[in-house]
């Protein structure tokens, strides 16, 4: 998120500036935790952007006769249901499998495998 400088030959009336060092801030004791929090916020913004877009789509669909109620009460076919569950399970696996990782070696751990 560091400041970028616009590259252009056109007049911008901008001057040089004195950059902040906010990129170096650690509020949670470990910069990785800080970074994870930032990513989590960014992810939230992306999810909300998608949900808000969906609301726009639903509103437009309603104007065309597809109401929110029709969306809410839509009953998938058996084939759709099976396909969606498969997709859901893939989503869950990709998203939450990392939580199960049982790491136990520090960065300084010796290389113990046989070198071939």
């Amino acid at each position, binding site marked *: *998120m560091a*400041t*970028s*400088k*616009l590259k*252009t030959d*056109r*007049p*911008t*009336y*901008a*001057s*040089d*500036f*004195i*950059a*902040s060092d*906010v990129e170096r*801030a650690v*509020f*949670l*004791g470990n910069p990785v*935790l*800080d970074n994870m*929090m*930032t990513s989590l*916020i*960014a992810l*939230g*913004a*992306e999810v*909300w*952007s998608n949900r*808000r*877009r969906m609301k*726009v789509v639903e509103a*437009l669909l309603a104007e065309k006769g597809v109401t929110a109620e029709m969306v809410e009460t839509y009953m998938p076919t058996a084939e759709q249901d099976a396909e969606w569950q498969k997709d859901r399970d893939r989503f869950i696996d990709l998203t939450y499998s990392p939580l199960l990782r049982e790491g136990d070696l520090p960065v300084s751990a010796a290389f113990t495998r046989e070198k071939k």
Partner: protein
Amino acid sequence: MIDRRTLFGATAAVVSFVGALFGSKSASAASAPMKMFKGDVEPRGTDQRLERLPKLDLESYDNFLTGLRIWSGSASSKTARRRFNDAIEAGGLDPREDLPLEKIFPLVENDTYIGTTARLRTSGQQLMWSALQKHFHENADAYLDEMEATDNIGPGKLELSPDMEIPDYTKHEIHIQPGGYVGDAFAGHSYHYGTNNFYRAENYQDEIHRNLASQMPTPKDGKVLRILDMGCGSGQLPAALKERFPDAEVWGVDVGGPMVRYAHMRCVDLGIGANFRQALAEDTKFDDGYFDIVTSYIMHHEVPAQKSKEIIDEAFRVLRPGGVYFPLDFETGAGRGRGKNAYSRFSSWRDHRWNEEVWRPEYSSVDFNGEMRKTGFDVVDEGPPGWRSRYNVLGTKPA
């Protein structure tokens, strides 16, 4: 509320559609952009005075971060404050007291819940600035075209000073805004939309600036021919002042060239004849006694104490006898300095250190009203209301 389309729709020139530049292939009839001038970049139209952000996803991103700011300022802050006070008490100190920072830090710095609140605020702000700057930079030519299209047209004037020496004290990335007020071509764009986040979505129609303009005190003789707003930023207050005083010559000055460029462009777009000049508040280049009213809004806490004094001197110089000076800022007027406790001390420091409020501690240290008296103003400590404060200091240049 003024509906810009109602106000200006009859005379608006509809020129080429630039939506394609931004990948928007169409818009509904209700939101179809009506270009106010050739080159106007407005792919998603306007919501009354506010040009909608040019992409739905960018608007939603900003919308989320605004919601996050509101939430972090309430729920998250409450948790942080409770833990802060508990930690201070556990350290044998009284959190109601204005404690020195060196006593506060060791007791609270490792509390990750307090850190979480700080991280929510800082990261939310960083992400917002980053998303805005990324959009404006990626579409730079269209936005530069847009500003160039209005640089030399009215109704108001724009005076840029490309050779002006920009003092270092103005070059900081205040509010961690990328490039700060002076260092980015789209500082005005980013500032305007970024402060919508700061105002928690309550200033989309310039409500705060229009309210300030409506409360602006006038000289006792009622004569208001010329008004100056020092440090005008994206120009919302000069615009609102021009609307309240349509016959007055209204000027906004700001050190940031991109700031006044944006301010001018926006006023052209709104059909408001406020004037803008790139200049320092302490050296406005106006003649002695030129103005009837000089004001500023949350500017003094962004400058060093010495500059604050020079700005007060400049306000005195450019006011005519009987003219009024109404500098609005945090803690002006009779309430200044009251209510300090350990948490507010800590929060102020964090704002200074990590929100790049470089000069705020200096501002807090200045006897602002006293400086106004020293300069020669007749001072009313409990002057008219304004943003956040029931009372604000008001100065009158003796007749």
